[in-house]
């Protein structure tokens, strides 16, 4: 068997970073794929966040249909409790499953929402998983034992090691930057080793591997890798850390080249990211703003965050207990998706907004948010507000935030209390942006072409097309004709397949539900992992 389609995910990749590296000759293999294929900016879904975005890439559906909105999300429509999302929460079929159903094998390495590992015809090594449980994220069941026998295999570096991640992120002291970059350089080497082993010994028709270092490095070290923020006179230490980052990307490029070589000349290569990246310069303390406007009530024993906008783990792990649930009408429960939930009263006279007043309440909240201005410049802080009907229409909409905000600096909200709802960051940091990358090379694609913006929802149909499969009628993306070589398209017209069958949305399911105590502890763990701001 040989690989038909090699899908390489690069978390948080953006041409803002990749283009200068390609132009400088540091990423020659990527530049070669661009020269031989097609490139486009790839617009992600709302919110621009790893779990929902990669799930949209894997399923061809928006979050309202596939059911993943965040790392943690509401356990049921009428609950303030949230739970850690797993693959059981994904309500629509993945391209891996669709490939299997068509008789094709699929290998999936380091993608989120893959634990417990689904029983695919192929291989799974789940991503975003603590190292002690990686065996549970592997399929088939003997795979972990085989990987363990590989020379240099180190599960603590391949998967998430809380201690290592915490050491590199807590406080983000400059002396920790080097180890942060080196950790992710080593992690990619581990994933490359696993991928190369499986490509050499048991290649699948669809072979997918994800590298998450660009996102992790981007969050902490954005000002080192964004040429637009590079100072005119950097000191030697800045140059040294920047060069380490560049070395990470150089090695990533070498790894991509090795995977392409191993996949063979007949394989089509698709590279995509879940979102882009950019600078964030301020912190919007959304729950503080909600409290100031009468939407949220803190408990009496809550003290303000006086750390100048730095979001400490201690605060994060306690925040859920800070809400007075008898009087809170709207709140943000996670700092990752910019989502606001409205508490709707479950019974007459009970806490929350009466159902009959929901629309008017939400409209008033939106108007108040739009009126929030930078006191110095008069600029609006919230530039867009999506209602859940707009952003998350679908069977799972009831689990989604009622409102999702886009901030003027593209950043993520803080959910912590503060003495001022808007605070500048001491230094620019990295945050997600809507435009990621798409690069594809193979007989299906035009050569040396740059096309207009594509949607992340297009990646699933394009991948199925490259595998010779039809595109399900309910996929929300398309196979863009402008990326395809006309002779190939003429010989291989895009075929439609029947709509996929969505799983039933969860209704008041108790399984895996987290109360605020456990949830806040898990949020703290994700903070250690480096995802949460």
């Amino acid at each position, binding site marked *: 068997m040989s690989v038909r389609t090699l899908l390489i995910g690069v978390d948080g990749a953006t041409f803002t970073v990749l283009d200068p590296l390609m132009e400088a000759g540091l990423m020659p293999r990527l530049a070669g794929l661009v020269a031989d294929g097609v490139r486009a900016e790839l617009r992600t879904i709302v919110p621009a966040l790893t779990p929902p975005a990669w799930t949209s890439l894997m399923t061809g559906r928006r979050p309202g249909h596939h059911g993943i909105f965040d790392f943690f999300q509401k356990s049921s429509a009428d609950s303030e409790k949230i739970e*850690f999302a797993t693959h059981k929460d994904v309500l629509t079929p993945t391209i891996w499953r669709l490939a299997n159903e068509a008789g094709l094998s699929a290998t999936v390495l380091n993608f989120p929402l893959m634990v417990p590992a689904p029983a695919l015809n192929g291989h799974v090594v789940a991503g975003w998983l603590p190292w002690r449980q990686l*065996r549970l994220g592997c399929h088939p069941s003997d795979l972990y034992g085989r990987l*363990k026998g590989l020379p240099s295999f180190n599960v603590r570096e391949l998967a998430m090691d809380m201690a290592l991640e915490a050491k590199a992120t807590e406080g983000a002291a400059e002396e920790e930057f080097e180890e942060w970059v080196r950790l992710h350089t080593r992690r990619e080497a581990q994933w490359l080793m696993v991928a190369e082993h499986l490509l050499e010994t048991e290649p699948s028709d669809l072979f997918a591997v994800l590298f998450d270092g660009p996102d992790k490095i981007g969050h902490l070290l954005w000002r080192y890798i964004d040429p637009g923020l590079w100072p005119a006179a950097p000191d030697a230490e800045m140059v040294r850390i920047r060069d380490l980052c560049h070395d990470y990307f150089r090695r990533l490029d070498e790894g991509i080249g090795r995977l392409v070589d191993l996949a063979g000349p007949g394989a089509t290569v698709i590279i995509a990211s879940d979102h882009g990246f950019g600078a964030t310069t301020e912190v919007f303390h959304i729950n503080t703003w909600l409290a100031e406007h009468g939407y949220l009530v803190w408990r009496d024993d809550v003290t303000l965050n006086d750390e100048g906008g730095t979001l400490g783990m201690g605060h994060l792990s306690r925040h859920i207990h800070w809400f007075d649930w008898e009087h809170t009408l709207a709140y943000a429960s996670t700092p990752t998706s910019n989502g606001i939930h409205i508490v709707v009263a479950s019974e007459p006279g009970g806490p929350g907004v009466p159902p009959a007043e929901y629309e008017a309440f939400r409209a008033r909240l939106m108007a108040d948010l739009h009126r929030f201005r930078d006191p110095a410049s008069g600029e609006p802080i919230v530039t867009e507000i999506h209602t859940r009907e707009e952003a998350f229409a679908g069977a799972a909409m009831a689990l989604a935030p009622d409102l999702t905000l886009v901030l003027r600096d593209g950043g993520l909200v803080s959910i912590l209390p503060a003495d001022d709802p808007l605070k500048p960051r001491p230094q620019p940091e990295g945050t997600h942006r809507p435009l990621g990358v798409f690069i594809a090379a193979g007989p299906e694609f035009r050569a040396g072409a740059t096309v207009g913006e594509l949607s992340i929802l297009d990646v699933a149909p394009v991948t199925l097309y490259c595998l010779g499969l039809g595109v399900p009628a309910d996929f929300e993306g398309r196979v863009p004709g402008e990326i395809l070589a006309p002779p190939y398209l003429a010989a291989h017209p895009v075929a439609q397949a029947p709509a996929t069958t969505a799983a039933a949305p969860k209704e008041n399911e*108790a*399984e895996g539900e987290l109360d605020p*105590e456990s949830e806040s502890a*898990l949020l703290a*763990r994700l903070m250690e992992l480096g995802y949460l701001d």
Partner: protein
Amino acid sequence: MSESKPEVLAYVLNLLRELAEDWDYEGDINADTLLFRGLNLQSLDVVVLGNSIVEYYNKPIPYADFLAEIGQREFNDVSVSEWVEFTHSHINGNGA
């Protein structure tokens, strides 16, 4: 699936012992072993383990509530036997 408590204990011990081989953990794991102080697990570890057990038994088991209750008591740790007791009660529909 209906399972006796000894059967659930055997499954959980087997799961933990198999995983512990990957941790370089050399101690014995038995019903009295503590998950946090004994095995040095963290919250997310226990949640992922719980997901695996839920998948195996195909029953809703509210481990998050269980962990929350443990987190609030003075001795905030849990033994394997206590974990098995909770699991068994929910597998057989007797959970609180």
